[in-house]
């Protein structure tokens, strides 16, 4: 039964495969609705399971301009076969024809580096569709609608679309999600959640109107954050919910963008733990999330994971200059080693954990860690322009660009985890975010537009496009730059912060 006034719109169903996103509250809908794609994507599995001489699927010659690094299996492969190698070999078989440019499911055209063009128009169309109506089978997305709005708006913004034209629709959608006790839930009548609130606040920032900013009840938000703050320094994601690194990151984004007071509300139970501020003990909490591998887990003691690594490093980069906060709370040599090991060849993309598969979404979660770590290594900014000496890129931009453009583009629009998977708005947003990050150099300056000094370093980031001789993609494939912490345009983050700085806050 339709719930929206007016006539139903006919749309494609882009969420047929939606993997559980680290930040979302949703789970994969069980229903497969994109039959046509499924058939087109089915590839014969020619992988041999014998321990000796495991072969890769495609024997066709690679597209000219493609280095052997991206067309050959890795040089050392153990004979012992386990579930992990079975999955890894299957993934390689699926990726190699795409990396070589020999798959008939790729659109092209291919450039001199053997890299296919970004199907910009297809992705724009896909994302506009993703913001429209979903059939009943998508009921599992009911608590993730703020995310769907964020992913759609962010993806479109990266592709150069002006999303301010839907600002009334954004406000109408998000208004009923706000609770009078503070924060936004996944929908009307759902309790407030930090992930929903993060997606809602960033969506309002992207449309960027005063109406949108005025929608947020900051006093109630501040009170609510005070109730989520825990005695160990971290944040629960909702009242009665779990505490993890997502909570820490989403809370810090909200506190800094809305220019909330740092003081804990007088009634906050976290005061009993000796804390005075919302951010007290937060760096120490994140420090306890670093595992012996060097990466960062969702909560202390669990396995290191790429998505949580981004949340933790971005949170530390809000709390203060990364050369102070990241260097103080993280063992940097361990972290660098683990992060670097997330990039695989020949795939070129990133995995989220040791011995797991590449996935396009880590283009952002893992790729997004690099500018933050590079800034930490470069040290205190000395000028308003890019630093004259820098540690530079510590990962392969070329590898990631190849994985994204060759493997992650769905022939019918939208981007995906890997070949053989459906596209969805989550992957479309974060694969494009990762591509944008490879197309820019991100750095901090010694100046911030903020009058309030709290978190001023987070607002000092700037970017410049990479030079043409560094790139394997074409000029026409360029995307808008995103702020490496807030994952929206720099000016959108800045405008929101300055608007709230000018608004009085009555505690």
């Amino acid at each position, binding site marked *: 039964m339709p719930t929206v006034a007016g006539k139903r719109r006919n749309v494609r169903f882009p969420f047929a495969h939606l993997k559980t996103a680290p930040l979302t509250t949703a789970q994969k809908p069980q229903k497969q609705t994109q039959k046509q794609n499924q058939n087109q994507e089915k590839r014969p599995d020619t992988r041999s399971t014998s321990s000796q001489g495991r072969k890769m699927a495609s024997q066709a010659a690679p597209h000219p301009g493609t280095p052997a690094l991206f067309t050959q299996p890795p040089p050392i492969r153990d004979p012992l076969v386990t579930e992990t190698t079975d999955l890894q070999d299957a993934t390689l078989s699926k990726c190699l024809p795409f990396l070589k440019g020999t798959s008939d499911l790729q659109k092209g055209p291919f450039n001199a580096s053997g890299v296919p063009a970004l199907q910009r128009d297809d992705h724009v169309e896909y994302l506009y569709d993703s913001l429209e109506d979903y059939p009943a089978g998508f009921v*599992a997305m009911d608590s993730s609608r703020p995310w769907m709005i964020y992913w759609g708006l962010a993806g479109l913004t990266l592709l150069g679309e002006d999303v301010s034209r839907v600002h009334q629709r954004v406000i109408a959608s998000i208004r009923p999600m706000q609770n009078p006790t503070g924060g936004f839930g996944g929908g009307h009548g759902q309790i407030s959640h930090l992930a929903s609130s993060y997606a809602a606040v960033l969506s309002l920032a992207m449309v960027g109107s005063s109406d949108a900013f005025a929608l947020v009840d900051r006093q109630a938000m501040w009170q609510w954050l005070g109730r989520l703050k825990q005695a160990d320094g971290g944040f629960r994601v909702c009242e009665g919910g779990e505490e993890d690194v997502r909570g820490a990151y989403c809370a810090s984004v909200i506190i800094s963008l809305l220019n909330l007071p740092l003081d804990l509300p007088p009634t906050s139970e976290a005061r009993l733990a000796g804390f005075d501020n919302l951010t007290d003990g937060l760096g120490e909490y994140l420090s306890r999330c670093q595992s012996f591998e060097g990466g960062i887990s969702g909560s202390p003691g669990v396995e290191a994971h790429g998505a949580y690594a981004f949340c933790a490093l971005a949170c530390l980069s809000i709390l203060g200059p990364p050369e102070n906060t990241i260097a103080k709370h993280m063992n940097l040599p361990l972290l660098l080693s683990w992060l670097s090991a997330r990039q695989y060849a020949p795939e070129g993309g990133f995995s989220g954990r040791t011995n797991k598969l590449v996935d396009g979404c880590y283009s952002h979660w893992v790729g997004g860690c690099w500018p933050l770590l590079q800034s930490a290594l470069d040290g205190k900014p000395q000028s308003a322009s890019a630093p004259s000496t820098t540690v530079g890129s510590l990962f392969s931009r070329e590898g990631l660009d190849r994985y994204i453009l060759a493997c992650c583009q769905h022939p019918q629009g939208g981007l995906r985890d890997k070949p053989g998977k459906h596209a969805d708005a989550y992957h479309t947003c974060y694969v494009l975010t990762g591509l944008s990050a490879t197309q820019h150099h991100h750095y901090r300056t010694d100046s911030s537009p903020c009058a309030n000094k709290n978190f001023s370093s987070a607002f000092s980031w700037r970017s410049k496009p990479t030079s043409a001789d560094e790139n394997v993609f074409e000029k026409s494939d360029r995307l808008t730059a995103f702020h490496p912490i807030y994952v929206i345009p720099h000016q959108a983050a800045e405008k929101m912060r300055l608007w709230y700085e000018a608004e009085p806050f009555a505690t």
Partner: protein
Amino acid sequence: MAEGKYANDPEWESITPIQLDDGSDSGAMPLASIAYPSEYLEATSYLRAVMAANEMSERALRLTEDVISLNPAHYTVWIYRAKILFALEKDLLEELEWLNGVSLKYLKNYQIWHHRQVLMASKAHFPTIPTKELDFLMEMFAQDSKNYHVWTYRHWLIRHFKLWDLPRELEDVESLIKADVRNNSAWNHRYMLRFGPREDAPAAGMANAGSALSTADEKGVLTVVDEDLVDFELEFAKAQIVRAPENRSPWWYARGVLRAAGRGVGEWEGFAGKFVDTHSGDVRSSHAVEWLADVYASGEGVKAVEMFTLLKEKYDPIRKNYWDYRIQQVVV
């Protein structure tokens, strides 16, 4: 909305459902809207009403089960359900039984595992771990041996019930590593059993983390070391490396063990060297090459650069920029 299983049920007569506000009253079309099935719309309209009244009742409990069956990703209904279970003093073992079925059906669901933790955290109901709990977790791992939510819950369990030395914990980890020596989640759990902070120390991935008394460089280094345990774990790692040398998990486990003991990577120079014959070009593990590079980095710069160069040019060239960075840091 007058038709429906709740509207027609006398038990629910006293409740005025709260209809969904999707924002369309403003005249603007909401974004990413869903054509909800009518039974979901009705059930959630009653859910909003009983939640607004904070009703703790049998009928509200049944309603939460209904909503969960229609959409298990609805995090709000799980939190409300937990509250009702405690308020009505329900049999939580029965709840766990029901939860087992739901968990096996929705393997990727977040909410189920937090709900389980909320129940299990009740000392009044569960002074000790229920006997079948670890069996059920192994059943989950049979479906997905790297399921992040289940491992997160299991880590919480060992801390909550102080199970670090329970033989069953190590047995389960070993059987999972035996089945797939590349199961990094199992390696992480083993590290936490052996070297994780215990008792009153806050939960952490490494000892000494997030403390005002130590720096980030000192994370993971134990103050009291059981050298026999350390040696045992190093031998275990060696045996697993021999099975599959190009497997990052045991190499990095061994680094963590040596770090905990305050012992350097140098003592494994001979072992790592077995996998690297640079003269014949027979190299069976890039992790062994990296190990040797780290051994040589303090004192034998030229040899360290040689190893990093092998990684950069031959065995792990996608990470060229990182290996170059490591080379720059070596004092030749």
